[in-house]
């Protein structure tokens, strides 16, 4: 057995700008997305959806559809063999509407046919008779009105009572704020392929965020044990929360089992807008109390979220909205009520920022109002009240981890400002752009600051876990190969890169192979809550550490010594007494090593009747400073620059962190100035990329980034999540900047041109 005494210290992969392994196939157009799948004998599916937000279904006649040549199955509510309903938190949403429809776009039937055109024709041939009913679209009315569903209208009311609830401040500011309904608008439409299996079950290839929770909902509705429903992650074209809920999964599996053939479905863009949940619209009343010196005394808030027709994750979203309602500030006394209610609007659920975004618009507008009332600089006011480690939140929880709130604020405002407005500013860089409408003399520049925070991982006592498997063996070339198997959904965020970085860091020079994410391994939870670096990254780290223990034991056996004097160093086992070294290939010559683990974070607790408890694992903090140019006459805004300081714990891959920050800021800017699902009596008026605008390369600002790296105790490598904070306070900073430029109150996001032009 050869051994080496030459030690070559490899540079660590952790903290390096490692390139994503799927980058090459993605730029070649060779990466396989869910919409690129096919199977022999495949059928094509189409969903029939209700055109009405609220109606009684009088009758459904599928005879016309069945008569279309090439139609293989038509399914309605009576064809669901198991649970008629599904849902993330509460199973209150029908697979197909039976006697009543509760939102425009609710599925009523699904068709499988030999080709897409026939499926579309057959769906159109289904004769549904509706008795159209008046929709309840005002969440205030729903809160006090008759039940729209047997489970009632209040998905959750979370009351937070903290400190002396009747405390008053010397200075009081009050406001009412609104945020519109934002869409995730991922580029790859919902799609999947269901294949019936010989065991009577079904195999589903699907673009999703959480394979196992999809599987459990599908199995319940199919009336099958979960082990007969096998899901494999197909290529995902973005998610941002919009794939956490079931869309076409159950329909596809039902059709595959009914026809005995593979069935594929791809949503069109308008169907995608109708077929997934959105960010909750919010109405928020706030009253802040402070001392004359500028210390916050109390925050009162009432946050009303429109959850739409079905529960989805409304309960968890409103918990976040209430918990983070005061913003990242020391608030000794609080009276906060969060409500999520049912209406006949489209269902709302997860979107990047998950409740923390909506309240940030309100608490940051309040902080600016308070600064004015106090005659204080808004940056100083925020710094004075900024949370620190050891401070207590309004939920009673003491922050034990890092809390660099002052640091992120100082970093955001320290960035150099862009050049001042001048006649040299090209037309394309002015508000209105190619319209060439803006004279520089008329433009007004504004600056705004906003600060936000949010929890990482799942909260309120949820058993948050990730299962991981590792197989170490010698590959065909004789070099070590580490095969990692987790059910983690790669949705674009770059987890696939982190797996390689972590496995290399822990095991040394190995080829890392990431097995297909599927339900053949235990759950990885959702790719949401900025949690997969901590949770799945932590699971990969843990299983590699376990394997190292086995490798050391095996080396001891080969050397005929005990493991006591052996250490793992730089990808090799070192016998300290003799300085002998044994590398991975030598150890693995004796056969593969297989390890598995289930990684968990510290247990959190539920919130009590006063909204008190250690409900959250850890917190991410962020600040944004926005610079805008406004054309007051036309109400047009150009966001010139967004500078940010973000608390990341530790950046494991700074290039990917940069991508998350720039992308999240663009979504925040979108919500601030252009993105809203326009509803009229429950009807979606803009389900297309022509009418629902997302930022283009010209709309997206320059971004200046400072990462605040204070390693978080208990987190793998000290890394917090990074995905959501960029989307939290970027939008509120833009609103603050537009207020600065115009002097208008602008209590509602997004700011539309007429909000400025008609009130200026």
């Amino acid at each position, binding site marked *: 057995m050869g051994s080496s005494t030459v030690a070559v210290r490899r540079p660590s992969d952790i903290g390096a700008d490692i390139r994503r392994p799927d980058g090459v196939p993605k730029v070649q157009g060779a990466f396989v997305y869910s919409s*690129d799948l096919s199977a022999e004998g495949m059928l094509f599916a189409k969903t029939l959806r209700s055109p009405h937000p609220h109606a009684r279904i009088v009758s459904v006649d599928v005879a016309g559809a069945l008569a279309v040549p090439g139609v293989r199955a038509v399914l309605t509510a009576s064809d669901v063999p198991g649970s008629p309903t599904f849902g993330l938190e509460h199973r209150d949403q029908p697979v197909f509407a039976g006697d009543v429809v509760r939102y425009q776009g609710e599925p009523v039937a699904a068709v499988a046919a030999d080709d897409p055109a026939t499926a579309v024709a057959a769906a159109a041939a289904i004769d549904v008779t509706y008795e159209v009913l008046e929709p309840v679209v005002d969440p205030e009315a729903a809160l006090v009105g008759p039940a729209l569903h047997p489970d009632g209208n209040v998905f959750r009311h979370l009351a937070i009572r903290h400190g002396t609830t009747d405390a008053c401040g010397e200075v009081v500011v009050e406001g009412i704020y609104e945020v519109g309904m934002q869409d995730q608008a991922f*580029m790859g439409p919902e799609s999947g392929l269901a294949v019936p299996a010989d065991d009577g079950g079904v195999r589903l290839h699907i673009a999703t965020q959480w394979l196992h929770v999809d599987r459990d909902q599908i199995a319940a509705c199919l009336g099958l044990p979960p082990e007969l429903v096998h899901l494999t992650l197909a290529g995902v074209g973005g998610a941002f929360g919009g794939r956490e809920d079931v869309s076409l999964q159950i329909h596809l599996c039902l059709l595959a089992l009914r026809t005995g053939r*593979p069935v594929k479905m791809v949503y069109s863009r308008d169907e995608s807008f109708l077929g997934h949940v959105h960010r909750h619209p919010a109405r928020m009343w706030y009253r802040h109390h402070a001392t004359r010196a500028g210390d916050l005394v109390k925050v009162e808030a009432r946050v009303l979220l429109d959850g739409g027709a079905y529960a989805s994750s409304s309960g968890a979203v409103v918990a976040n909205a209430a918990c983070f309602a005061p913003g990242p500030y020391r608030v000794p006394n609080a009276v906060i009520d969060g409500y999520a209610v049912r209406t006949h609007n489209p269902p709302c659920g997860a979107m990047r920022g998950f409740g923390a975004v909506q309240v940030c618009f309100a608490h940051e507008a309040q902080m600016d109002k308070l600064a004015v009332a106090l005659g204080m600089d808004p940056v100083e006011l925020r710094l004075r009240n900024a949370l620190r480690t050891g401070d207590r939140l309004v939920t009673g929880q003491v922050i034990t981890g890092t809390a660099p709130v002052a640091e992120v604020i100082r970093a955001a405002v320290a960035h150099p400002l862009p050049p001042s407005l001048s006649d040299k500013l090209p037309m394309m860089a002015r508000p209105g752009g190619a319209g060439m409408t803006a004279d520089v003399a008329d433009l007004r520049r504004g600056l705004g600051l906003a600060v936000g925070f949010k929890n990482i991982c799942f909260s309120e006592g949820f058993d948050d876990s990730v299962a991981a498997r590792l197989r170490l063996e010698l590959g065909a070339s004789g070099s070590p190969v580490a095969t990692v198997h987790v059910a983690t959904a790669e949705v*674009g965020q770059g987890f696939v890169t982190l797996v390689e970085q972590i496995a290399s860091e822990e095991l040394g020079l190995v080829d890392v192979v990431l097995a297909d994410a599927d339900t053949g391994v235990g759950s990885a939870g959702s790719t949401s809550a900025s949690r997969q670096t901590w949770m799945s990254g932590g699971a990969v780290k843990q299983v590699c550490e376990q394997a190292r223990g086995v490798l050391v034991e095996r080396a001891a056996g080969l050397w005929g010594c005990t493991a006591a004097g052996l250490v793992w160093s730089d990808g090799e086992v070192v016998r300290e007494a003799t300085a002998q070294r044994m590398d991975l290939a030598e150890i693995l010559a004796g056969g593969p090593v297989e390890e598995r683990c289930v990684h968990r974070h510290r247990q959190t607790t539920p919130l009590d009747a006063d909204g008190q408890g250690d409900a959250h694992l850890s917190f991410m903090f962020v600040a944004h400073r926005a610079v805008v140019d406004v054309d007051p006459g036309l109400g047009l805004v150009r966001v010139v620059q967004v500078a940010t300081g973000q608390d990341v714990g530790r950046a494991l891959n700074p290039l990917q962190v940069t991508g998350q920050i720039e992308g999240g800021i663009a979504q925040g800017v979108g919500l601030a100035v252009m993105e809203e699902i326009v509803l009229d009596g429950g009807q979606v008026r803009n389900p297309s990329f022509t009418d629902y605008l997302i930022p283009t390369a010209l709309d*997206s600002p320059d971004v200046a980034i400072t990462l605040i790296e204070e390693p978080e105790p208990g987190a793998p490598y000290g890394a917090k999540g990074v995905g959501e904070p960029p989307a939290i306070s970027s939008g509120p900073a833009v609103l603050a900047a537009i207020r600065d430029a115009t002097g208008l109150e602008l209590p509602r996001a997004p700011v539309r041109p007429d909000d400025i032009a008609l009130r200026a």
Partner: protein
Amino acid sequence: MSSQPDRMPQQAPSETPGQPSTDVSGRAASGPTGEAPVVVAPYELSVNGVVRRVVGAWVGDSLLNVLRDDLGLLGTKGACEQGECGSCSVLLDGSVVCSCCVLAVDAVGAEVTTVEGLTPPGGLSDIQQALVAAGGVQCGFCTPGFVVAIHDLLSTRPDATELDVREALSGNLCRCTGYGRIIEAVRTVQREREAADG
């Protein structure tokens, strides 16, 4: 029955430049509202330098549908069906078009270039290389469209300013990146090409 899906289509067509390939039997194409599809006579498209026969396509089929579903060129993506997002960008006689808004039959006689045609055999173009290196790829669904649009931009305006670049790429939507790393990739290619020419 196998539960492993394949990429479409089942049979890979032969790819001999300048030679008609084996017919690929097209699926009946999708009509927008369910009217009976009108199948046109077989026709030929020149795609990435290869003459391809299209058999059984509907007269109203978009170039996007024919590229993906009949010719098996899945690098071109569909995401909006109305020319807003650029995911389906291809070159038609050297100009960028949204293939979802071009009738496939209108492309007869023109040269169609897709992302596959802009990918050197076994490697990456400088644009593709820069997108990977600069972090311009996240979910990647928009990326093939960007590869095509950037190729067009740098072919016609190699000296484009950053603002020109942003304007030129504003027909391609990306929801993941906020465009910063994509712009950086374009600037990198411009610098590299200028250095190579210099």
